């Protein structure tokens, strides 16, 4: 089962590799991971996607908590949350006439052309991971030159927020 975890951790060198090490040492794959500093620069906020049953998830959550650098871990999977991922998708269109095709798909998926050269177009798409998958599938007749994705970001809906206080 797909799991999405939100992690607040000390913004220190080595924090990210502690998290990465934990997963590899316990034989669990990280599907995607994004991490950046928060407005409070002493903290970093991570969104991490992995796969596993309830037992694996319980153990991963506990192990993450056990890392001295980790302040808070929240499993977003079970709760109401917003997920967004961004992708940059470079396509070589079949022919000039295909631009309409691209613009039609962009309109459906709220895509935007970020760069263009001859027949190579780079689209910028923001949405859920499924929407990005669908965008790529919709452009399947054209040559996919390169795709780069951020992996999902996750945040709880409503007033809930990941904060230091949660841990105390």
């Amino acid at each position, binding site marked *: 089962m797909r799991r999405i975890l939100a992690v607040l951790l*000390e913004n220190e060198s*080595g924090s990210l590799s*502690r998290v990465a*090490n934990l997963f590899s040492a316990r034989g669990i794959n990280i599907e995607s991971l994004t991490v950046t500093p928060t407005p409070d620069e002493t903290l970093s906020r991570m969104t991490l996607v992995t796969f596993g049953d309830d*037992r694996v998830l319980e*153990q991963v959550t*506990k192990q993450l908590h*056990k890392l*001295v650098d980790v302040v808070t871990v929240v499993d977003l999977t079970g709760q109401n949350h917003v997920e967004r991922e961004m992708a940059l998708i470079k396509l070589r269109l079949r022919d000039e006439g295909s631009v309409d095709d691209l613009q039609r798909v962009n309109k459906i998926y709220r895509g935007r052309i970020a760069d263009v050269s001859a027949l190579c177009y780079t689209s910028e798409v923001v949405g859920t991971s499924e929407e990005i998958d669908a965008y790529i599938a919709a452009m399947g007749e054209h040559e996919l030159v390169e795709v780069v994705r951020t992996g999902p970001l996750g945040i709880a809906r409503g007033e809930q927020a990941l904060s230091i206080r949660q*841990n105390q």
Partner: protein
Amino acid sequence: MLSVRLLSNRMDNLKQSSNPETQELNGAEIFIRCLVEEGATTVFGYPGGAVLHIYDELHKQQEVDHILVRHEQGAVHAAEGYAKSTGKVGVVLVTSGPGATNAVTGIADAYMDSVPLVVFTGQVRTALIGNDAFQEVDTVGITRPCVKHNILVKKVEDLPLAVKRAFHIAGTGRPGPVVVDIPKDVTEQSRVFSYPQDPDMRSYQPTLEGHAGQIKRAAKLIAKAERPIIYSGGGVISSGAHEELAEFTRLTGFPITNTLMGLGAFPGTDPQFIQMLGMHGSYEANMAMHHSDVLIAVGARFDDRITGRLDGFCPYAKVIHVDVDPSSISKNFRAHIPVVGDARKVLRALTDELRDGKHSLPDVSPWWGQIREWAKKDSFAYQQDMDGEIKPQYVLDQLYQQTGGDAFVTSDVGQHQMWVAQLYKFTQPRRWINSGGLGTMGFGLPAAMGVQLAHPDELVCCVTGEASIQMCIQELSTCRQYGLPIKIINLNNRYMGMVRQWQDFFYDSRYAMSYMDALPDFVKLAESYGHVGMKIEKPKDVEPALREILSLKDRLVFADFITDPRENVFPMIAPGAAHNEMILS
């Protein structure tokens, strides 16, 4: 000249300390002040380029004692022996590069057995980090998977807080090793010294008090038990909960078994104690585990050497699991009532709850009747033919009787370790010092050094084998330097006994590389280091030899017992078997 210079240095130090508010100290001096603040007055280590400033300052002062080992692995094991036998945080100081990598085995050992250590490693200058400099390794990277935490100190102003945090993290919650990596330039930069009172860590707050609701639920389950068993581990010793454990056990009247790491937490001579459990545990302990309906696990982690095949483990039991480390709970085996907290606090709360009068304690006499039947198998029994070869168990039995069960005993890893665990009835915690989780051959002798230094007037025995002892035998030199009168009981069967046993059972007795050829003459070897060496070859000589060994109070004695090479450890739960599938002999 030297002594005059030392004296004047000390005078300088005195002058400096007269005005600590403004006097700048260099990083090496600050390092020593931090150790003194932590009360860490014994350091095990080995010098090298990156830590020379620190060693220079160590040389100028008298508050911190430095014990020079012969290999960095020995320093870490010695610090483990010191920590395990005292409950204090053990301290290690080694240089960068090979100093740090040699320490890794010991660090991993301490991590597996939850031993509180702070290991200081020298590092190349900050400007050289990442340049593949001489004796540079990424110590923080190498040790990351086998430490509770590690810290690279990048500037001298960060050093006091790093040390404060290291000791705090190592010694609280589930204890463990913390590595502090200190680049050489940090030890020469100057700064006014002040030591923080608070480690100030928002992200590290171990849960110590058990949840009141969980404790009530546990008490309810206990009150309804028919076939209960208490299974306690090293966590009880770490937490200092042995008295609370004894009180809880006596109040309930339940049978209790200890893990290898938990021996001594409950008196081994008590009638409620049904011996160690697990792969080489007693028949009654393993059968009682298998048939139990309520399992009360305290400070134990359901290691594979305990559980055997998980789907055959405790099939009828509801599990109460008390542990300070939440990740130990339901990791290998599902707990029905998890209680996160310090063993001492939780046991006290649980005992109070049961005393409260709300619960009547169950009658467990029929259950005891069954356990006593199982115990009749006498599964640790052995036969000593006084005209035959020396049985290793006989040596340990004699050692137990002659020391009254009151010695500190360290061991290496293998058959001899299991026999000590089976036959030496520890009645106090922190007396049995061995490598359980990592199973590190070479642990015993350096660990005994740490124990002896912490307890200079006590009897310290190192039970070992001719294979294990050779992995850290260089420490005989350290023992000589510091006059450590350790008694080495070498059970010499000319095999890596446990490897040979597995080859007997599972590889049709093909003894691939388990034969110890070209052994040294241990008597001469001991003598060459300035110790007493003895060789004992006949059963009738065992008892008088042990008397003589124990009477040589001021000397290290290396006693080489030539034992039966075919002896195996029984009972045994083969890997992949369940508790009710023991091989008895």
